[in-house]
């Protein structure tokens, strides 16, 4: 069970990476308009 002391912080590191990515996506405006982009994906170009 000694691996826990290594794996748990590692898991939390991954989680904080996800939070950081989310923060970046918010800052870059990807969450501002949640209605148009899902439609825009239907267009080819």
């Amino acid at each position: 069970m000694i691996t826990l002391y290594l794996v748990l912080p590692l898991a939390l590191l991954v989680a904080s990476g996800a939070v950081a990515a989310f923060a970046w996506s918010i800052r870059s405006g990807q969450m501002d308009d949640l209605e148009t982009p899902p439609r825009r994906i239907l267009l080819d170009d």
Partner: protein
Amino acid sequence: MTSAATAASGTGTGTGTGTGSDTGTGTGSATGGCLHCGLPAAGKDFCCAGCEVVHAALAEHGLDAYYKVADRVSMGERGPARTTGKSYAELDDPAFRQLHVQARADGLAEVAFFLEDVRCAACVWLVERVPALCDGVAEVRLDLGRSRADVVFDPARASLADTARMLDRLGHPVHPYRGVDRDRLRQQDDRALLLKIGVAGAAAGNVMLLAFALYAGMFGGMAAGQTSFFRWTSMLVAVPALGFAAMPFFRGALGALTTRRLHLDLPIALGILVGLVWGTLNVVRGTGEIYFDSLAMLVFLLLVSRWVQSKQHRKAASAAELLHALTPRTARRLREGGVEEVPLEAIVAGDRVEVRAGDTVPVDGVVLSGASALDAGLLTGESRPAEVVAGDAVHAGTVNLVGPLVVSATAAGEATRIGQLARRIEDEGRRRAAIQRFVDRVAGRFVAVVLAVAALTAIGWSLTAGPRVGLEHAMALLIVTCPCALALATPLAVSIALGRAARRGLLVKGGDALERLATPGLVFLDKTGTLTEGRIRLTDWIGDSDARVLAAAVERGSAHPLARALVAEVDADDLGATDVHEVLGGGVEGTVRGRRVTVGAPPWVTARASVPAGLRSAAEVLATAGKTPVLVAVDGRVVAAAGFADAVRPDAAPAIERLRADGWRVRILSGDDPRIVRAVGLSLGLPLDACRGGVTPEGKLAAVREAKAAGPVVMVGDGVNDAAAMAAATCGVAVHGSAEASIDAADVLVRRPGLAALVELFDGAAATLAVIRRNLRVSLAYNLVGGTLAVTGLIHPLIAAVLMPLSSLSVLFSSSRSRGFRAPRQEKESPR
């Protein structure tokens, strides 16, 4: 990739083959309906002129691929197209650029437009193709939810007017977007809240995983070192994450403390704070319970409910702004060179302005030339149009009904009467205190009770089992009773109600508006446009009914509102009048099939024809009943009297009856002639003392203020003259077709005609408050269970972790079962 290439080449050189075949298939299906929108077109190629224009524009610019895109991506959202053919010259005016255009660092400029009729992905495709069609336009990005298009352009090369004309021809009439600053602020708020949700969610997920291990360890046994490691890790994740994510609650609680107002944020912040501090202490001490998993979940749920609620409010608010954007903000200024369309802001006193029939007068001023009738209904509440000739004063906000006028501006913008009213409305809106929300009142008592019980618990257990146990149980109580479900109770019920109300054509700007409407009090109704339809109709005809056709024949050429009302009622062929001449303020005279027909105001007609006593008194009776009498004479003898009035809406009487049955006291407050108001009140079964006429906007405001001292007051109206009273009232309701100022001032916007919607609004508000109360009872019951366990010392973090989501789920279920604003089954709208 192939279709992308076709689309791109369509705008360039390869137009011939690609578009030719597209049009071919399109024409083949002509019998299937309109070539543009696919709606039934009665055997023709197009259902309306708008579709034809757009179809031609698409073909001209090689954009036929639109139809392929639309067939593929739109989900039954297409509708007939509308174009206005406006020149949009005002968009290139320096005044417009200064107000709305923003320079960018790269030398380009950016402007936001509000586009009409954007519905689906195909609209996105079409609108974002504009840069290829208009010189100097670099990029267009469309936001469907806000109907907002951001246009990036080169100010040296592009003409905004050209761009707007292009969008117009493609079926999307353009308006300047006026909420740019507001949008930016909201965007900042939204982003901040979203980040907090993300952090709280991540913390909740991870802490809960750790908690699972700890709970498992409690039953199965776990090495002391590992338990300690898990506890420390939980703390290191939860404390910083929640310290950041729960900031809104701490700030709210602090605000409540400094203003000495009770607020729901207070018990929430207390629970979270005690939980975090106590948990940290216990981790450091290495003994005692920790509640980090419940707390993280709690913060996450509360933030999500805030998000849902604010989205719902935004929707109603932006719908109100859309209506706002639709009102024209330009004026036609006369200069030596001719007429130019300029933004309203560019007009100064002394300018000469042309006002065409049908336009709204943009300035206060004096008529220089022309003669017409003005509808001041929205400004003063008068139902009868006022006639104006050269030399008369006119006010901004009135509608020119008959013929073109040239007006010399004496005041523009803020200095106009309507501008001053607008400022007063704003003052009233600011002055209105927020109501003490029901849930906050409950929260106040809740805090007091919980604190008292916690103190008793601490003392009680200290005396029997020592101070350490006493403190432990008291802390557990404070954490366990943190009112999560209580905090969800209102936002959930309100969000669901607002969403449903919006689908029923009722835009409620804030959740507290529903609470303001839920208890019956006094309701003031405006008359013109609210109780009545707001336009003149023929209501009485006394005497020779054959004369109707003759009268209609001479009136047919006239633009006077009474003449139009008469012609609209006569369903016969035009007999053809000759030798017609019209006297403003008098009437019309003409020859129909050899007979001399005179139609007009009683004094003018009696000066030209003999009147039988019966018809003379009939005209007087009509006048006392609040109607506008008109006499009809044939060959020098009066043969009929007609009465015109602004007809009462058919659903007004039953609606008022319902309101009164529900306990509302109904009053009419109108700017119109007191006789007319009394007549309308009588027909609706209201006592005479409940009907006040001839009230100025200031008078309405005073009446509302006075009545408000005695209890809640709801003001229902449509005009600028009602707006200040609406802002001052406990709740203001703007009905269908309201003036811009009322839309701003009101808490609720009704977007469908008729007063039945009003009854539905009041019913829905009452039902929503009932659900809120039920939710509060449910959540308090859960708190009672948790609290009792904590007081008796039987609580365990695991029980808390189960109780909390369970109570939140119950509240969610209870909210979704609300009967407020449900569509009645029989008149359910068919999907578009």
